[in-house]
């Protein structure tokens, strides 16, 4: 006998960073008015696109790798419950402790209590999307625990009392002059003669972080991959700061979304080729740290793994939308997206911006809480082509648009348009009516004023094609 437990729940309101304060068009409007932001983003995305495109072009089997990555993720999702149990068994056998968190509140509580149990009041953090998603830093601060971000860009965001705007390059919206100002204002013990040269800025961050690395006993990380077969966790990064966090402290707490799983060690062969080339445009990832439970006398002697759902089971229940869980957080879709390139990440209101955010955030929260995001795309398809695991983002966007609550007036217009188009005589009459109403020019009433604000409508032709054909 089976027990029906109900549909899986979405990510709770009032905690975490999956919902914005205003709909996408309004937030985008503000971002578009920021000329410095447009310059910073245009420069950064163009640079990453060129670098990534060049190294992807070197691989003759890139398309086969994408297909393999997609198939591995589809297989993982189809067997997720049993693979998660296998992971728990392996991590536990290797000396780790596994915790299951249904949502952001539960995960924040588990991590806070684990830190409190160590008796320390500061943690160093490896850059992690999952902990940003659940608002862990805010929860730790509320409990009197100081979280210190150690990824350079994430540190810039934290010191600037800002929010990340890109999955991989969270301070992509800042240029070096702005970063210098933030460091001068916020970084304890910074040299007042600091310049905006990248090497000088990195040096300042290094001096600040080294002291923190050596004096902090607890670290919090996310995970890029977890291997069910061995219980191994993996973090990929470019700076080495993550490795400091993963090796120096006494206690390591890893918060991982349940979809980060791969079945076997060998599966990493595919993803370790796909991820660096698609994300930073590197042939090989610079720092790949892997650990399996606890190794006596080497590295953290207490390891906790927090498995986070927070709406993921609800995504998995959607036949079309579930492929959003295949995402390996490479950001390739952000870097090629013409919308993201112009609005930046903050306009999406979620830690997951860009095309993947537009399909993932509404599914995690329920579409009614992020109703404008599925429309934050021109459906140009660049994201689908760029995705290293072939997530068909345009199809998911179109699918989610069907589930969004539509405005009444729009429903009426769309229903009558469909009715007219299903009746050729009515349709021909409507064509002529449009012509007579002089539906053209420079100023139209709502909802078409959005068009005529910047674009003219053409003069209607003297006759439609079907009129011309009928007279031939």
């Amino acid at each position, binding site marked *: 006998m089976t027990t029906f437990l109900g549909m899986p729940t979405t990510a709770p309101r009032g905690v975490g960073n999956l919902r914005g304060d205003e709909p996408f068009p309004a937030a*985008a409007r503000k971002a578009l008015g920021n000329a410095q932001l447009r310059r910073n983003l245009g420069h950064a995305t163009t640079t990453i696109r060129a670098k990534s495109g060049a190294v992807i072009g070197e691989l003759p089997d890139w398309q086969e790798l994408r297909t393999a990555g997609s198939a591995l993720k589809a297989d993982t999702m189809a067997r997720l419950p049993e693979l998660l149990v296998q992971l728990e068994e392996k991590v536990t056998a290797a000396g780790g402790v596994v915790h299951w968190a249904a949502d952001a509140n539960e995960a924040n509580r588990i991590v806070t209590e684990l830190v409190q149990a160590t008796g320390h009041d500061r943690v160093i953090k490896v850059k992690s999307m999952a902990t940003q998603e659940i608002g862990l830093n805010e929860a730790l601060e509320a409990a009197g625990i100081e979280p210190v971000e150690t990824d350079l860009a994430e540190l810039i965001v934290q010191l600037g009392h800002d929010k990340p705007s890109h999955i991989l390059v969270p301070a992509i919206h800042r240029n070096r002059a702005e970063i210098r100002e933030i460091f001068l204002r916020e970084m304890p013990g910074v040299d007042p003669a600091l310049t905006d040269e990248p090497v000088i800025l990195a040096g300042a961050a290094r001096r600040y972080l080294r002291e923190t690395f050596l004096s902090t006993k607890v670290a919090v990380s996310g995970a890029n991959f977890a291997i069910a077969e061995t219980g191994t966790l993996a973090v990929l990064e470019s700076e080495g700061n993550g490795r400091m966090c993963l090796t120096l402290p006494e206690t390591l707490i890893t918060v991982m979304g349940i979809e980060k799983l791969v079945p076997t060690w060998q599966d990493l062969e595919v993803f370790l080729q796909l991820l660096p080339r698609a994300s930073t445009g590197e042939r090989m990832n610079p720092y790949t740290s892997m650990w399996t439970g606890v190794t006596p006398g080497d590295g953290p002697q207490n390891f906790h793994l927090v498995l986070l759902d927070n709406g993921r089971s609800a995504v998995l229940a959607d036949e079309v939308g579930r492929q959003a869980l295949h995402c390996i957080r490479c950001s390739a879709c952000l870097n090629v997206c013409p*919308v993201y390139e112009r609005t930046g990440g903050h306009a999406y209101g979620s830690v997951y911006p860009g095309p993947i955010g537009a399909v993932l955030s509404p599914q995690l929260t329920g579409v009614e809480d992020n109703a404008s995001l599925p429309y934050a795309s021109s459906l140009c398809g660049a994201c689908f082509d760029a995705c290293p695991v072939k997530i068909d983002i345009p199809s998911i966007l179109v699918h989610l648009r069907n*589930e969004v609550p539509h405005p009444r007036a729009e429903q009426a217009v*769309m229903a009558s348009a469909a009715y007219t*188009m*299903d009746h*050729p005589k009515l349709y021909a009459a409507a064509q002529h009516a449009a012509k007579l109403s002089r539906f053209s020019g420079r100023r139209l009433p709502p909802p078409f004023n959005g068009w005529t604000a910047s674009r*003219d409508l053409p003069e209607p032709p003297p006759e439609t094609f079907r009129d011309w054909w009928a007279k031939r």
Partner: protein
Amino acid sequence: MRIALFVTCLADTMFPAAAKATVRLLERLGHEVVFPAGQTCCGQMHINTGYQKDALPLVRRHVRTFAPYDVVVAPSGSCVGSVRHQHAMVARAAGDEGLAARAEDVAGRTYELSELLVDVLGVEDVGAYYPHRVTYHPTCHSLRMIRVGDKPQRLLRHVRGLELVELPAAEQCCGFGGTFALKNADTSTAMLADKMRHVLGTGAEVCTAGDSSCLMHIGGGLSRLDAGVRTVHLAEILAATEAA
């Protein structure tokens, strides 16, 4: 060859010149063009705006209208994309497997103009004459949804008198995106601004594409700027000759 014209609602209503040019071109190449009565709209606007259920009768109508024909052509990569990649999906979502199968059958016989010319009719030099400096915008759905590749450019390179100039960042969306241009008008305009900057930078007199919708968008922006560059559908260039 007997070819059924799927005119598309936009070309029919607002841009009949592109549709008439398609007819003239195919007839000049010795083919018979028929215009199946009863056709209206493929339903793409409804599907892409989240009104898939409202689109179902339009899909049914389209499939019924074009089922009797061996070859169907449309002067639009986007509408062909909808027929090819969305019609069966809409039918399946409504639980109508029979319609889905018929939709796939029609989709397999439906071609965008440059595909029909190059792949089906095997012609790249259509005997056109168009003495202008032209840049080509590949349009997202032609490029990434139905993947016409460089077929339009191959056709344009054979046009006598035509100087084809490359459009920088050509593969980037112009910002149209159907109702995206209304729902996200500001972002759409920012995308259009960059597209226009690139078009104007080529020094071309004419910007062409295989989709009237994207051309309406780019052309609407250029008209607002009084930029002195016009948008012309690919079919009109290919239909032009010394005689006319």
